[in-house]
């Protein structure tokens, strides 16, 4: 219990940010037309590609002799990139379709 409160106070801003982000996330989606569900999903998918930052940090902090870490890390970066690049490009292509009609 005490640990929990401890954890809470050290990260209280972080936690509040998390709560706010949840609000924002929900609010933002709120009133989206069915047509945009797929592009939106795809866009969100691209955004969580930000996990690649984690993979990069992992690599930067890895000991150069710990091959397993390096290999896994490299793969992680690769996969993350796929998520980011692929995600944004696909979304853009979907939206291209809608744009036409504007």
């Amino acid at each position, binding site marked *: 219990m005490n640990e929990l409160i401890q954890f809470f106070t050290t990260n209280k801003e972080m936690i509040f940010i998390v709560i706010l982000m949840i609000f924002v996330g929900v609010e933002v989606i709120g009133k989206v037309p069915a047509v945009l569900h797929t592009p939106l*999903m795809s866009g969100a*998918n691209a955004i969580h590609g930000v996990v690649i930052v984690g993979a990069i*940090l992992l690599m930067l902090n890895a000991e150069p002799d710990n091959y397993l870490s390096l290999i896994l890390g490299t793969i992680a970066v690769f996969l993350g990139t796929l998520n980011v690049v692929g995600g944004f490009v696909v979304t*853009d292509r979907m939206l291209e379709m809608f744009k036409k009609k504007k």
Partner: protein
Amino acid sequence: MNLEIQHIIYLIASVTFIMGLKMLSNAKTARNGNLLAAAGMIAAIITAIFFHEGEVKPIIYGLIFGAIALGTVVGWLTAKKVQMTKMPELVSLFNGMGGACAALIGLVEFHHNVGDPTSIGIILAGMIIGSVSFSGSMIAWAKLNGTLKNAIRLPKYNILNTVILIGLVLYAVYIVWSGTASEMHLYLLFAAAIVYGILFVIPIGGADMPVVISLLNSFTGLAAAFGGFLYGNQVMLTGGILVGSAGTLLTLVMCKAMNRPLFNVIFGAFGEGAAVASSGGPQGNIKEVGPSDLAVQLNYSKKVIIVPGYGLAVAQAQHTIKELETILEERGVDVSYAIHPVAGRMPGHMNVLLAESNVDYDKLKEMEDVNPEFTQTDVVLVVGANDVVNPAAKTDPSSPIYGMPILDVENAKTCIVNKRSMNAGYAGIENELFFRDKTSMLFGDAKKVLTELVTELKALD
């Protein structure tokens, strides 16, 4: 100094994500929103690499850049080459990659943090969620591209899954408390998570995949957020949480549009539905109509509404239907399209499809707006749609789609249904509409039949 700059850029990036997502939910701004978020992402990545504090071996940079370069090329090409209708699969695939990335981070960071329960807890959480999202997305992907055709159900799969899930959590908790350093436990947990992901998605019918993908999407977001907590990295945290919450809500919104409670999606009420349906054979007898007669009928009608469905996508007949529209318009027929929110296999599927053949945006009418119009409609042309025009949704409480709002095509003077056979649609149920007096069937592949129809029409003057 570097640190300060990092913080600032991360903060800006986080804001671009929010703005981007917000803009994405409005047709006018959507595209720019996507680009904005992408810009923020690039900034974040560059920052992570170049404003890193401390000594880094060049080899490592080499690996990073190599991986990014390769990933960019592969990602870019696949995304560019895929055809519209295959996009949901691809989204699922990329989502899986993100999940895997998160899982790998967990695998590697574990031994760095042995002894610090909080971190270990965060790591495991991220790893588990990432793995589930990964394997789950792979299954979803396989289902959507047909590799895995129908829902595979182990006996009592629901209970089984729940048990495994609980086991998974308990095991993780054990690892945290025990403070063990053994990688063995870690990899076992990893494997278990992968398995759970598979079992989680495999019983779910392909029709529900978009929902599942959206759900897994928010999972990956969550996994990313845990990564953010682990590294105390704000952009990961905010980006992850944002997607986590937005994704969850989007999932619910989608379920609402399909009129399927998320619970049923996950615990597969559709399955039962299918069972029921397969039992009921064809009722009564059906009328058929040929392209030539139909051509005449269309030619002399005032108002025609086209109801596109999944079949139109399968047949890739979007261009042919556009052609048909143009000709009819020339003949002074008022043509418009009735778009059901869940027609096809992904939300907006029909819009995307018809947009491909430059159908005028204003001709695409949402269900609410078009339903009243059917009464004044001479001919409704249902092309490869089935469930979305199935009256059972209104009349038959036992039907798995009961309660789903449908297009009231039966109100039109006549209703022509084009499909290849009497087979069921995704819900796997009979459609009594086909047996109505007003209805006549136009059998055959949509593209083939529509082309004939167009030629007939051309011949007509």
